[in-house]
C-alpha cells in the first residue's frame, strides 16, 4: 500500500533539514495534484458558467469567466421547449433513464444467472460456451452494431426501447466479472442450503444474490453508465425525435435546431448532471468496477 514515501524514512535519519525537504516535497505534490484537479474540472466549470450567459456573450471574445447577468432562464427555456411531436428534454431524459436503468436491472438479473451457472453448476457444454463467450468479447462493436440495425428493423425494435434493452440485457464482460467474483466466494452457505433441501433456484435467489451484492452493484453501475453514455447504438436504432436519448438529442441540437451555444451547453448539463450526482454518491463502486474490469479483463 504505502509505497514510495515510507521506505525513504528508513534511509534518512530525520534531521531537521530532511523534514523540511519532505515538507516542501509534500507541498509541491499538493500543488501538482490541485493543478491536475483544476484541469480535470475546468471544461465543466467553464461550460457551467456558459449556461447562464446570453447568446452573444457566450461566443464573445475575449471570453469572460462570469456571466454579466445570471440568465437562469436559459435552463428553463431549454427544459420547456417543445421541438415538435412531443420531443422535449424531459422526454429525452426519461427515455435515457428508462433504457439505462432498465438495461442495468436486466443485466444484473441475466448476467448473475449466467454467472451462477458458470461458477457453480456442472453441465455438458460449459467449457465450450464459456470459451465462446470470452471470444465474443473480442468482436469489435462496429462489426455487429451497424448491421444489427437491419435485424432491429425486421423484428420491429427500431424506435422502441427494446432495441437497446434486449441486446443491453447481457454483456459477456459482466458475466465474466460476476463468474470470477462467484468463484472466489466460499460455497459453504450454498452447500448448507442444498443439504437443507433448497432448490437451485432458491439458492440462487436467497443465497447467491445477497452474497454478491457488491459485485451486482458494480455491474449495475457499469451498465447504467455505459448505456447512459452510449451514442452509436441509440443513434442507429432510435430515429424519431420523440424516442431519442439525451446523447442523440444533444449531438443534433446544434445543427438541427440551430440552437445557440448557451442552450447547447444547458442541454449537455442535463446529461452530465445526473451522472455526476450518481458518481458523487457511488464513486467507490465506479472505481471498483473499473479496477475490477481492469484486473480481470
Amino acid at each position, binding site marked *: 500500500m504505502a509505497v514510495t514515501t515510507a521506505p525513504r524514512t528508513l534511509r534518512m535519519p530525520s534531521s531537521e533539514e530532511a523534514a523540511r525537504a519532505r515538507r516542501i516535497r*509534500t507541498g509541491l505534490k499538493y500543488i501538482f495534484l490541485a493543478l*491536475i484537479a483544476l484541469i480535470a474540472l475546468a471544461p465543466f466549470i467553464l461550460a457551467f458558467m456558459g449556461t447562464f450567459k446570453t447568446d452573444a456573450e457566450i461566443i464573445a471574445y475575449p471570453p469572460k469567466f462570469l456571466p454579466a447577468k445570471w440568465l437562469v432562464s436559459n435552463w428553463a427555456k431549454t427544459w420547456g421547449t417543445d421541438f415538435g411531436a412531443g420531443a422535449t428534454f424531459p422526454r429525452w431524459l426519461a427515455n435515457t433513464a428508462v433504457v439505462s436503468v432498465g438495461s442495468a436491472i436486466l443485466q444484473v438479473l*441475466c448476467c448473475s444467472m449466467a454467472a451462477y451457472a458458470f461458477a457453480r453448476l456442472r453441465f455438458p457444454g460449459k467449457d465450450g460456451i464459456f470459451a465462446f463467450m470470452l471470444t465474443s468479447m473480442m468482436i469489435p462493436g462496429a*462489426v455487429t452494431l451497424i*448491421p444489427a440495425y437491419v435485424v432491429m428493423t425486421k423484428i420491429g425494435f427500431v424506435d422502441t426501447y427494446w432495441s437497446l434493452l434486449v441486446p443491453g440485457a447481457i454483456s459477456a464482460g459482466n458475466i465474466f466479472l460476476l463468474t470470477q467474483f462467484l468463484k472466489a466466494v466460499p460455497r459453504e452457505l450454498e452447500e448448507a442450503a442444498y443439504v437443507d433441501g433448497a432448490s437451485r433456484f432458491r439458492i440462487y435467489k436467497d443465497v447467491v444474490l445477497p452474497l454478491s451484492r457488491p459485485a451486482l452493484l458494480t455491474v449495475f453501475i457499469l451498465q447504467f453508465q455505459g448505456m447512459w453514455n452510449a451514442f452509436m447504438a441509440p443513434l442507429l436504432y432510435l430515429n424519431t425525435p420523440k424516442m431519442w436519448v439525451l446523447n442523440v438529442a444533444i449531438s443534433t441540437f446544434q445543427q438541427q435546431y440551430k440552437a445557440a451555444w448557451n442552450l447547447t451547453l444547458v442541454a449537455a448539463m442535463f446529461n452530465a448532471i445526473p451522472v455526476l450526482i450518481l*458518481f458523487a454518491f457511488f464513486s467507490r463502486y465506479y472505481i471498483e468496477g473499473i479496477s475490477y474490469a481492469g484486473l480481470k479483463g
Partner: protein
Amino acid sequence: MAAADMRTTRPAVNRGRPWLAGLVAFLVTAFVIIAATLISAPTRGIKIFPLKPYIGEAVGSGRLFVLMGVLLAVLVGLLAAVMISRNWGNQERRQEMMTAYLFLSPYLLITIVFTVGVLLFALYIAFQQYDIFTAPKWVGLANFAKAFKTKDFVQSLVNVLWYALVVTIVQTSLALLLAVQLNSRFGGRNFFRTIFYTPSVTSSVVISMIFWWLYLKTGYLNFGLEKVFGLFGVTWAKVEWLNNPRGLFQLIAIALGGNISSDLWYLRGPSVTWMAIMFQNIFTTIPTFMLMFLAALQDVPSSLYEAASIDGANGRQQFWKITLPMLRPAVLLVVVLSTIGTLQIFDQVKILTGGGPLGTTLTPVYLVYREAIGTQGQIQMGYASAMAFILAIIIFVFTFLQRRFIERGTEQY
C-alpha cells in the same frame, strides 16, 4: 466415466426417456438457430410479417446463407441432443443441467440473435453487393478491393493509425504518472481520485459539445494560448481548431518555408483538427486507465521498495526497476484496450467533424456508418461490412502483436 454412470443408473430406474429428451433438445436448438438465421438472412426489403412470404424471400434471396444456417442448426442440434440424452439418466445431473441451461437461456438467446446471427450476416454480405432493397449479389472480394482502392478508406486507416499511436502513448504514460502520484498514502487521496475520474464519467457527447465550444475561434483554448504566448510577447493567431486540415508535418514544412502537396497527403501527418480530437480523447480516457494502474499498484509488494531503498535506490530508479516491470501486465492491458478503443473511434467524428476537413478526421467506423446508412448516396451494406471486417482484422493483429511484444519481456521477471 459418463458411460459407466449411465450403465449403472439406467437399468435400475427408467428415469424419463433419454431419446425423447434428446429429440426435444434437438428441435428446440435447431428451431432457435433456424429462426435466428431467417431473421438475419439478407432479404429484399425488411418486412418480416406476414411470415410466409418473408420466409420465401429469405430462402430465395439468401439461399446460401439459409443453407449454412440450417446446417449449423442440425449440427448444434445434434450436439445438444447427444449431451442432453447422455445426462438424462442421472437425476441429479439432469437437474443441474436443466437449471444451468435455464439460467443461461437469456444470454444464449440474445447472443445467438444479436451477436452470432448478425456477425454471420455481416460476414456473408461482405462478399455481396447488398442495399437492403434488392437481392444480394455475390461479388467475391470486390468490396475488400474497393475499400483499398478508395481514398477515403485508405485515408481513414492512416488517420486512425496516427490516432491510436499518439493517443495510446500519451494517455498510457500520463495515466501511469498520475497513478504513481496518487498511490502513496496522503490526506485527500480519495478526494483527488474522485475528482480526477470526473472526465471519464461523462459521456463522449457531452465532452464533445463542451470541447466544440472551447475549440471555437472565440473559445477558451485560443484565449488561453493568446494569454500564454502573450507572456513571451508573441501574438497568437487564433486557430479554428475543428476546421483546420493542415497536418503536423505540413506545418513544420511550412515553417521551414516549404509545403507538402496534396498528392502526398499521407505524409502530412495528423491534421490540426485531428490533433484537437486526440487531445479531447486523451483528456477523457486518462482517468479510466489511471484507475486500472492504481488497482495494479496495490498488488506490488511494498517489501520490494523497502529492499530497494535500503540498497540505496532513489525514486526514479525504483520506478524504472520495480514499478514499471511489476506493472507490465497492467501496461499490456491498458495499451491493448486503448488501441482497440482508438481504432474504433466514432462518436467525436460523427459529432464534431463528419470526417472533414479534407477527410483528415475520417475513420473506418465512421465510413462503415456512412455507407451502411447511406448518408451519402446509396446504402452499401456489403461494402460497409467489408470495411468493418478489415478493421476487425487490423484490431486482431494489433492485439496479438502487442501481446507478443509486451509479454515477451515479462518472462525474465
